[in-house]
């Protein structure tokens, strides 16, 4: 794989968290804090229909009755939900630009700096055909290649726009995979979500380009609560990527997203994430709290949902992209790399719920802990009584770098069907001294050698990423571990 070949060069060329800058732009905020009024404010800002406001209010009221989950292996001071802004939008982006020409040049410059070109004539890192939806704090500021996609009947754009233009689709599917009351953070998101991407791939269409959303938190004291919904109709295919970054700040900022995927008969959704939110500094100050609910429903027979994630950022990651394998012969996949360094904490994994016959799932999770960080794989594989012939294979490997970090593996295997087969394997070890010495004897310096070995360790997962993300992900692997050897 050519992308792997580039690793070492790139590791050298990129400095530490280079996305930590702040864009100086006039923004409009909702009043600080969280209340029913704020929920109404957001809904009004977005000119939403009454049903959606009601939906939000219901979610908000339910959220008030819920307790923050405490079962994950993460520790953080209590979050004051009233000490944050739930809506922040660049003033220029308020009305939503009609075309790319109208986008505030300051914003275009920001995305350029992040390496995300919003001019359609430009190509991303030498790769053509990526349509991008750029979400800046609470709003989508630009979407590219809309017309090209429309020719194929593909709908791709901000959620707020979809609410206006395709209310029937949004109403039908939103909350159908992750109900508003699903969990604490999903309920919070349902109440205050601002934007996110909406994707609809019509029957039989193979989406002609990669779709990508780039999430950026910019404003201080602001949470980001986006909601993404992808619907793949019968026999369709889409590959969707998301990336995320945020400025370096001393405070902790909350990101609580919900992603819902629906795959009908013979449809396939490939969902890739490179999560690089600001992780905090080497003393554990600042960083994003990332509480995310991602779930895909394989509703149709022979449908397939594949999650690939590279989690290198955030001070705290709480995230379990899951698959509900409802349709017979449906397939769920989860490929994950989670790297923690310094004081980062990650509790991440997946759930594979097998309902239909001959459903199969595959989980490959690689965790790397360095510094004083803690990394946990937590995964559930559940075979329900009707999942005849269900199959799961899980492989979890953890790598430890240094004496003060921790790596934990907590799988839950539940089977109610004798004809289903579940296999789980896990290992934990450190980078072997002889591997390091071998590389160094060949002239490769220690940090590079670690990046090389860790990239090798993650290879099975990284090769699942679309090419242009794979390159970025490999760079990240090296950068995230900088300073992990003393």
């Amino acid at each position: 794989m050519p992308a792997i070949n580039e690793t070492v060069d790139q590791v050298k060329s990129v400095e530490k968290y280079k996305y930590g800058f702040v864009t100086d732009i006039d923004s409009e905020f909702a009043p600080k804090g969280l209340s029913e009024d704020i929920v109404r404010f957001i809904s009004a800002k977005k000119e939403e229909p009454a049903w959606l406001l009601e939906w939000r209010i219901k979610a908000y009221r339910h959220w008030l009755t819920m307790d923050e989950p405490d079962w994950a292996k993460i520790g953080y001071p209590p979050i004051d939900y009233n000490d944050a802004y739930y809506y922040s939008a660049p003033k220029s982006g308020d009305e939503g630009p009609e075309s790319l020409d109208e986008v505030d040049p300051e914003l275009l410059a920001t995305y350029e700096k992040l390496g995300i070109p919003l001019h359609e004539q430009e190509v991303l890192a030498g790769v053509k055909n990526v349509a991008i939806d750029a979400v800046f704090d609470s709003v989508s500021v630009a979407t590219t290649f809309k017309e090209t996609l429309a020719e194929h009947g593909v709908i791709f754009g901000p959620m707020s726009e979809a609410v206006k233009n395709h209310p029937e689709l949004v109403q039908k599917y939103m909350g159908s995979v992750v109900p508003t009351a699903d969990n604490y953070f999903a309920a919070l998101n349902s109440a205050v979500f601002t934007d996110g991407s909406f994707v609809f791939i019509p029957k039989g269409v193979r989406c002609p380009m990669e779709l990508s959303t780039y999430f950026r938190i910019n404003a201080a004291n602001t949470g980001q609560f986006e909601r993404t919904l992808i619907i793949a109709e019968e026999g369709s295919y889409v590959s969707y990527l998301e990336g995320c970054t945020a400025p370096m700040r001393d405070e902790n900022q909350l990101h609580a997203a919900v992603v819902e995927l629906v795959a009908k008969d013979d449809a396939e959704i490939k969902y890739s994430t490179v999560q690089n939110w600001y992780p905090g500094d080497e003393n554990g100050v600042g960083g994003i709290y990332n509480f995310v609910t991602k779930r895909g429903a394989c509703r149709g027979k022979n449908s397939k949902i594949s999650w690939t994630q590279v989690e290198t950022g955030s001070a705290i990651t709480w995230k379990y992209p899951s698959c509900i394998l409802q349709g017979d012969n449906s397939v769920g996949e989860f490929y994950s790399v989670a790297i923690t360094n310094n004081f980062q904490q990650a509790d991440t994994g997946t759930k594979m719920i097998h309902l239909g016959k001959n459903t199969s799932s595959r989980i490959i999770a690689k965790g790397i802990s360095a510094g004083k960080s803690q990394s946990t794989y937590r995964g559930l594989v559940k075979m329900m009584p009707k999942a005849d012939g269900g199959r799961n294979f899980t492989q979890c490997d953890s790598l430890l770098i240094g004496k003060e970090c921790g790596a934990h593996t907590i799988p839950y295997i539940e089977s109610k069907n004798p004809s289903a087969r579940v296999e789980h394997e896990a290992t934990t070890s450190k980078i072997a001294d002889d591997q390091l010495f071998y590389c160094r004897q060949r002239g490769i310096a220690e940090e590079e050698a670690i990046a090389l070995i860790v990239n090798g360790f993650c290879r099975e997962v990284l090769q699942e990423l679309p090419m242009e993300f794979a390159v970025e992900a490999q760079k990240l692997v090296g950068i995230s571990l900088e300073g992990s050897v003393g």
Partner: protein
Amino acid sequence: MNKLSATSQSFVDACSISETELPWLNSLKKCGIEEFSKVGLPTLRNEAWRYTSLKQLERLDWQKVAEDYEVGELSWLTSGDSYKLVIVNGKFNYSLSEISGFPEGAFIGSLSEALGSHSELLETHLGRIATSKDSPLLALNASHMADGYVILLSKVQLTKPIEILNVGRTDGQAIAYHPRNLILLDQLSRATIFERCTGQNTGSYFMNSGTEIFVDQGSHLQHHRIFADGPEAIGVASTGVRVGSDANYTSLVLSDGGKLLRNDVRIHLSASGAETKLGGIYLADDGQHVDHTVLIEHEMPHTKSEQLFKGVLSGKARGVFQGNIRVHEGADGSDGQLTNKTLLLSPGTEVNSKPQLEIYADDVKCSHGSAVGELDEEELFYLRSRGIPYTQAKSILVESFLSEVIDEFNLGELADTFHQRITDWIRAD
């Protein structure tokens, strides 16, 4: 404080701690009841109990064991040449036990006797290897502790095995008892213990045992157990083991009886060179619930643990396995391996497997594997194509699946007993 369930409350109410002459014992019991009163019986919300509900306990009115019960005929696994202990409903029975000739300076007998004769040693260890904080059931056990067996060996290598028979027997009334046992092996001692729980008659009993074991300074303990309680029995066996320097605790457990069994083992590898090897075989049929939960604490460098648990479930049985390898900070050179495999023989069975790794040191070699499924179709077909009838082919495969665990252990004359139990279970199924 949460409101306790009716049954939890009744256990609290039934607890009457009489002041003995041993202040430490009084406070041990008091701490137990305080701890239990705080939390009560665990519910599914308790992560360690997420797959095993003790709701069944709520259905009956549990009475204390009032008097000594008559015991029916006892069968022994070992041939004549062994020390034999009999505990009936949690009470040590001297007249049925055969302990004569036990080596000079060593002790074998009841908890009540040991409290008199070896009070200082017991003060040092009792309630400290398995503490009331470890689980609500241990707290309950501490508060109600009345009797049990005690085995103390220092610089003693036993040449004969010890066979322990725990008999649960009730005639109608549902009884609950909480035996506390203690085994100490020190300074290059060696012992082999075969321990069995059986039920006589078919009444309901709730055995909530607490066993504390300390194998120290180069000592080796082989502790093999069979849980074959009566059909209405609810058993929670909590065992805390501390393994000291260059010492070894080896244990094979087979369970096939009882209505509900929770075998809860926590092993502290508390000094360099400590090793443990655990095997488990669980067989469960219609309506049975069996739970093997093991936590291995690698507390010091260069410690080693191995676990191999295999189960076969049939009918509407439910099997639970939870195994956790926890390597503490600084415990470099730890080696922990765990394997759990479960065969499901029929629809309606349910298995929950939760193998865990919790690692806080970097120079470790740890792994776990878990597999759940039915018998291999291809293997079945192969046997049948050689003329072996379906049911027999199935038995052969199930037996060989489980025999692998037995073969890992040096059981001597008892190996046949273990194999026989498997064969009998398959036949009955």
